[in-house]
């Protein structure tokens, strides 16, 4: 379980990077001179995905070298949880989406990012629970 969670997060990080650039795309182009509100979602997702992958790789290094202290696991776990909140925030309170229910960013990108964010938070919490017995150094 301890090794699986960071690997899951690496895959989710890749999804955050690739998704909004492909099948989770936002509204394209400009609409008669008006920029769609969802334009910056792919950039934010890209950054969040990269940070998540870095944090997960760091966690894997801690696990495989056996040098991870309890503090290190707590810090990485909290970092993951924050990234999860950011992923949920990107289509909601950070960037936002187009108003119409039928725009792709609203129909597909938003729910997908919310679910991805929720999964990241869950893996962070599970990771914190699974590592709670680590001795404090």
């Amino acid at each position, binding site marked *: 379980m301890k090794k699986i969670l960071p690997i899951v997060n690496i895959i989710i990080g890749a999804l955050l990077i690739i998704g909004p650039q492909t099948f989770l795309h936002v509204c394209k182009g400009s*609409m008669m001179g008006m920029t769609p509100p969802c334009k910056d979602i792919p950039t934010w997702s890209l950054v969040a995905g990269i940070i998540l992958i870095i944090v997960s790789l760091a966690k894997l290094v801690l696990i495989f070298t056996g040098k991870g202290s309890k503090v290190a696991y707590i810090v990485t776990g909290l970092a993951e949880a924050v990234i999860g909140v950011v992923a949920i925030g990107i289509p909601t309170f950070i960037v936002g989406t187009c108003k*119409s*229910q*039928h725009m792709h960013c609203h*129909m*597909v990108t938003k*729910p*997908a990012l919310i679910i991805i964010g929720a999964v990241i938070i869950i893996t962070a919490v599970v990771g914190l629970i699974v590592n709670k017995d680590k001795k404090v150094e």
Partner: protein
Amino acid sequence: MKKRSIGALAYKNIQNNKGRYFKQAAMVMVLTWTMLLGLIIIVSISSGLERLRDRMGADLMLVPLGYERSAEGILIKGEPKYFYFEQDIMTQLENADIEGIERLSSQFYLTSSNQGCCDIPVQFIGLDKDSDFTIKPWIKTLYVNEKDYLNDGYIVVGSSIDVPEDGKIRFYDQYFTVAAKLDQTGSGLDNAVFLNRTTTKTLYEAALSKGFNFMDGCDPLKTVSSVFITVKDGTDVKRVSQQIRSHIDGVQVIATDGMIGSTQQGLEGFISLMYILIGILIVLSFVILSLSFKLQVTERKDDYKLMRTIGVTKGEIRKLVLSQAFILSIIGSILGLVLATVSIFPFYTAINAAVSIPFLIPSGIKLVLLYLVTGLIGIIIGPLGALGSAIRISGGLEER
């Protein structure tokens, strides 16, 4: 210290050996996930068709000859379209004096644009306020007085259309006040905007000014796209339909029951297949779980023998095995129900846009029942699958 129990021992066994027990929980999770998803899809399709049938309100629909598919597109698939009768159909119907007609109401179709002058792409349906019977019974939210909802400058929107905070939506650079919102149908009507003839003319002229010409020389106050007809009680709809065809040329007469009925027929096979697949999945799950529990119980045979030796009765052993199965089933069921919820509800709008059939997700008691039935099957299938093994292992432990 808490009291110990067989349930607590069962839970402890699972906790200390997650790898061994994960497979069973996963099987139940897959079963409930797939089952709930399948049932929601089946009920959504059936509900969508039923609701559309009720919403039509009419027995017959007249459209210009050759435009039956377009009419279906508007009503069932939500594809914005426009078409018009070349003749003055209402006068022709009046002159034909066809027996059995109770009510008549005409509609005029326009579409909005994907360009920046419109907030959203929709189907416009111009109505005759005095004769219309298709939308009033379906008003869900009223923003003005009831008698004013189809006044000049007002629009009534389908359930999928978001109403901005200021209550105004822009089409062809003209702002229109939202007077009411309709109940959901899961069909194309959810993307429609309804307005009276005068407002339609305002809209038409606004579209013209933006370079959109729907029909040369068309008068939105008089031009008709379709006519909805209800027949008197006891009248044969087919006979009325034949009479219309014999008196008026260039008209397609659609029995609304037939239009929905043919869609429904086409889907019946799909729905039956879904039920069969669900049935097969339940049986398969039971078989796989039974085999899995049998293996697992055999693996732990020595532990159960030990328990019998120290004074645990056959019934208590059975209870232990079934408790383990029950706990795993509960975990699997909850996970499966959560996954199904997350799979369908956040993406409902996308699914509705992607399927070309009425799709109305159940709510209220119907939805609760679906969850209950699925959850119940998920919870009992584990213990059922483990029952044979529980009986076998509790009995076969006596020494020679």
